[in-house]
């Protein structure tokens, strides 16, 4: 036998009339003083018309584990009811009946009452900075004749406070274009520059092996670079 004292509090809620709400404080010890885990206890809530004693009886509902409140539906408005509760441990041992609480079921308004304290806070979070870029118009090993159009695009995120540098390097790694460094547009235009993003005429430089070095400086963090080897032909 599980000896647990359940002190019952009964409220006739004006919000759910024809119904009653019962609540109680979860026990933490057995009557022999040993500890109980309240979260594992379920409760049987018995009810019957006043002045009958509902517990023990056959008319009861069972709460979920750890729940110390119950809503008794479908009562008769204006009638007095007696309510008692028992605790049941995980082994199925049921405590003795609690005290009897009495209340009058009130008229049922049906829908729940609303909650309280609605607050709304607006948050504006800057997007994360881009972490890389993609290159358009030039691939490694490509043989280029005539006009060369190379551009770069940050992978994602903000497009402010960042820039690209494009260097056309010869086979010795020496820049033959000068640095093109722009906040925008992100393209190679040669030197002198032909903004915005006009093509570079490769006939202005000797044929041979070249590489395009692209250095991307993101809004925050360290620059990243890519070197694309290619060949200029006629």
């Amino acid at each position, binding site marked *: 036998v599980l000896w647990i004292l359940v002190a019952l509090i009964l409220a006739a809620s004006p*919000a759910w009339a024809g119904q009653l709400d019962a609540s109680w404080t979860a026990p933490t010890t057995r009557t022999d003083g040993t500890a109980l885990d309240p979260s594992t206890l379920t409760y049987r809530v018995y009810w019957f018309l006043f002045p009958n004693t509902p517990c023990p009886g056959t008319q009861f509902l069972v709460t979920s584990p750890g729940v110390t409140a119950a809503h008794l539906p479908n009562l008769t408005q204006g009638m007095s009811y007696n309510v008692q509760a028992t605790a049941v441990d995980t082994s199925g041992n049921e405590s003795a009946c609690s005290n009897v609480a009495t209340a009058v079921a009130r008229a049922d308004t049906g829908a729940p009452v609303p909650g309280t304290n609605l607050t709304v806070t*607006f948050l504006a*979070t800057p997007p994360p900075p881009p972490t890389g870029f993609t290159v358009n118009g030039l691939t490694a090993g490509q043989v280029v004749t005539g006009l060369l159009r190379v551009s770069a695009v940050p992978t994602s995120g903000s497009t402010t406070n960042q820039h690209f540098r494009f260097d056309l390097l010869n086979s010795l790694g020496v820049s033959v274009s000068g640095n093109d460094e722009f906040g925008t547009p992100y393209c190679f235009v040669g030197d002198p520059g032909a903004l915005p993003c006009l093509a570079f005429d490769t006939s202005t430089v000797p044929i041979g092996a070249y590489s395009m070095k692209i250095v991307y400086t993101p809004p925050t963090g360290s620059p990243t670079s890519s070197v694309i080897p290619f060949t200029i032909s006629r």
Partner: protein
Amino acid sequence: MTMRRVLVLSALLVLMASPAFALQAALSWTNPADPSVTGINVQKAATAAGPFVNVNTTPLTPATNTFSDTTIALGAQVCYQVVWVNTLGTSTPLGPACGTPAAPLPGSGLTIIFKP
């Protein structure tokens, strides 16, 4: 003699670009002590007069007391209300609570020093 020209911009800086801020409205509320509640709906409208429509696609669980809405726009007023549902009907709304999302204010007091 070293000459310096100091320009202090005391006015707030104006954002030159429109950053793609990630916006959200963070809602919170206190639930009624009603075990008959089976779900909660968060509703939104452009004005306090409505009409309000549900933001959540399925009712929130009865214990839920926060909600985040990311379908809002800078400078556009938005109003929220919350309703509780049981098998017998829907509560009167809690709210509305209205506001207008705004971008964070930039800093101030930028100092630029020109060196000869």
